[in-house]
C-alpha cells in the first residue's frame, strides 16, 4: 500500500505536465478544429528561447520565463497567420499534415540553431522533497500540479463565464454562423493559437529540468499528451486535465508494477480499452463528426 501511494505521488508531476500540454492542444482544436501535431516541437522551441535567455542573455530565471512566454505567444500567433489561416478552407487532413510538416521544420530549425546536445534548465522550485513516513512529493511537482489546476480553472472560467469564452464557443460550434453574428472569428482563432502554444510551452518549461532539453525533447511527452487529450474526449478542458493525470498515473503504475519495457505499449492498450468502452472518451459528448 505504501509503495502504491508513493507511485501515485511520484506520478503527479508528469500527470500535470501531460495535462498542461493537452490543454494547449485542446484549446487550439476547440476553436480552429485543427489538431496541432507541431505542438511539442513549438513548445521545445519556446524552451530553447528560455534556455537562451538564461545562458545567452544572462537574465534571471524569472525574466527568462517572461521572455519565453511572450515568445511562445508570438510563435503560436505566427503559425496561425502564416500557415493555418492560408489553408483554412482546405480539408482537415491537409491542415493536420501541414502541422506535421511544421513539426519537422521547427525541430530542424531549433536543431540547426541550438544543436542536439542536451541542455539543462533549472527547476522552478528546487529543494528537498516534502513528506515523511515514506511518503514524499517533490516541491517542483507540487508547483506543476498547482500551475496545471490554476491554468485549467482560469480556462474553464473564461470559457464558461466570460464574453470571450462565449465567442470562442460560438466559433467552435459553427464558424460561419458566428462570423455572421458579428463574432470576430479571426481574432479568436488567432488568440487560441497564441494561448494554446503558450500553455503547451509552459508544460515544456516544467518538463525540461526532468528530462534534458533538446529540439526533440517533447516527442514522447507529446505522444502521451495527445493520448491524454483523446482519452478526455478531445475538446473537453476538464477531460484534458483528467486524461493527463490518468495517463501519468497509469504510466507510473505500469512501470512500477508490470514492466518498464512495455510501459508505452501498455498505456496504449489501456487507452484502447477505455476508448472501446467509451468511444467518445471519458468526457466527450457523442457529437456529430466535426468537419
Amino acid at each position, binding site marked *: 500500500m505504501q509503495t502504491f501511494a508513493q507511485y501515485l505521488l511520484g506520478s503527479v508531476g508528469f500527470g500535470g505536465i501531460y495535462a498542461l500540454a493537452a490543454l494547449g492542444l485542446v484549446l487550439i482544436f476547440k476553436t480552429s478544429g485543427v*489538431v496541432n*501535431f507541431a505542438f511539442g516541437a513549438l513548445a521545445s522551441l519556446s524552451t530553447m528561447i528560455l534556455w537562451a535567455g538564461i545562458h545567452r542573455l544572462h537574465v534571471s530565471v524569472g525574466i527568462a520565463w517572461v521572455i519565453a512566454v511572450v515568445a511562445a505567444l508570438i510563435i503560436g500567433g505566427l503559425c496561425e497567420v502564416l*500557415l493555418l489561416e*492560408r*489553408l483554412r*478552407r*482546405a*480539408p*482537415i*487532413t*491537409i491542415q*493536420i*499534415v*501541414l502541422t*506535421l*510538416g*511544421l*513539426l*519537422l*521544420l*521547427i*525541430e*530542424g*530549425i531549433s*536543431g*540547426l540553431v541550438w544543436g542536439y546536445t542536451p541542455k539543462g534548465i533549472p527547476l522552478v522550485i528546487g529543494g528537498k522533497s516534502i513528506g515523511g513516513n515514506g511518503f514524499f512529493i517533490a516541491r517542483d511537482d507540487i508547483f506543476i500540479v498547482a500551475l496545471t489546476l490554476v491554468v485549467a480553472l482560469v480556462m474553464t472560467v473564461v470559457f464558461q463565464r466570460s464574453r470571450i469564452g462565449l465567442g470562442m464557443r460560438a466559433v467552435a460550434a459553427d464558424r460561419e454562423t458566428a462570423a455572421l453574428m458579428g463574432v470576430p472569428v479571426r481574432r479568436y482563432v488567432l488568440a487560441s493559437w497564441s494561448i494554446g502554444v503558450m500553455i503547451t510551452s509552459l508544460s515544456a518549461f516544467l518538463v525540461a529540468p526532468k528530462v534534458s532539453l533538446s529540439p526533440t525533447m517533447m*516527442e514522447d511527452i507529446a*505522444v502521451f499528451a*495527445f*493520448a491524454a487529450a*483523446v*482519452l478526455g474526449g*478531445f475538446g473537453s478542458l476538464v477531460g484534458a486535465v483528467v486524461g493527463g493525470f490518468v495517463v501519468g498515473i497509469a504510466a507510473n503504475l505500469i512501470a512500477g508494477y508490470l514492466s518498464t*519495457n*512495455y510501459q*508505452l*505499449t501498455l498505456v*496504449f*492498450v489501456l*487507452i*484502447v480499452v477505455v*476508448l*472501446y468502452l467509451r*468511444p*467518445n*472518451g471519458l468526457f466527450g459528448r457523442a457529437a456529430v*463528426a*466535426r*468537419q
Partner: protein
Amino acid sequence: MSPASRTVPGGRAAARIAQWAMVGAVVVIGVLFPQVYGQDFYAVTIATECIVYALITISLNLLVGYGGQISLGQAGLVAIGGYAGAYILEKVPSLPFPVELAFAAVLTTIAGLILGLPTGRLRGHYLAVVTLGLGVAIPQIALNLTSITNGRTGLIVNPASIGSLALASPVAIYYMCFVVTCLSVIAIHSLLKTRTGRAFMAVRDSEQAAAAMGINVQRTKITLFAVSAFFAGIGGDLFGHLQNLVAPGAFPFSLSLFFLAAVIVGGSASLPGSVIGAILLVLADTQTTSLPGFEPVVVGGVVVLVLLIIPGGLAAVPATLMRLRSRQGRRRARTGSLASGAGD
C-alpha cells in the same frame, strides 16, 4: 475529407491517353534505370527506396485517401511485414521469395484485421490515437521480444531467392521491388474498380448513405484495414531487403508521419500522386544527408510549401491548371480553395 477530383469533364479520351502514356513512361524508366545507372549502387539503392516507399505510401493512401480513415501507425505494419519476412528467412533460408512475401503479407493482414476491429466504433481522433498506439507499440515490442526479434540489434535479412537464384545485388533487389510494386499497384487499381473498392469510397463519403445502399459499413472498414495492411506488409518485406536489416530503430513514429505526409503531398486518393509524393520526399530526405541537420528542415519545408501552394497535393496540379484555363472567368467570382471538393 473528399479528395481532389481526378476526372476532368470533357477531354476524357485525351486524359486516358495521357494516363496510359504516363504509365508507359514510368514502366520504361523503371525498367531502364538500372541499365543506365547500374554501376552506381548508391543511385540504384535510392531508386529502390523510392519504389518501396511508393508502395507503402499507396497502402496508406488506400486507408486515408480512398477509405477516409486516419492512420498514424503505418510504420508499425511495415515493421511487422519486415520482421515476418526476416524471421521466416532466418528459419528457412532457402524459402522461395514469393512464399516469404506471402507470409509477411498474411501476418501483417492479421495485424490489420485486429487494428480494424474497433474502427466500427472509433473514428477521427480516436482512431488516430489507436493507430498511433500501434505505431509506437510495435517497435517497443520488437525491442523486448528478444527471442524472436533479437532486440535492439535486430535481424539481418538474408537475400531473397527464387530457386537457386539469390537476389542479393542492389540491381537484383531493385528489380525485385520494382516488379512486386508494379504488380501490387495493378492489383490495387483493379480492386478500386470492384464492388469492394467502390464500397470503400462510399463509406468515406457518407457512412449513412453507404449503409442505406446496403453496404455493411463495419465489414467494409475492416476489409479496408486488412487490404491496407496486406500491402503495407509486402512493402515491409521489401523494406527489410532494401535495408538488409530490420531493427526497432528503423520504424520510428516519424516514419509513419513521413508516409502520411507523402500521401497528402502527393494528393489523397491518387495512385500517381502517392508515387510522386513518396519520390519527392525520399529525394528531399536522401539528398540532404550530406548537410547534417538540414534533413528535417528540407522535408518539413517541402511539405509546408507544397500544401501552401497546392493544398490538393501534387496530383491536383493538372486538374487545377485545366480548370483554371477552362473556366477562368467563373472561378474568379468563386474565390474558393484550389482543392476542389474541399467543402464536401
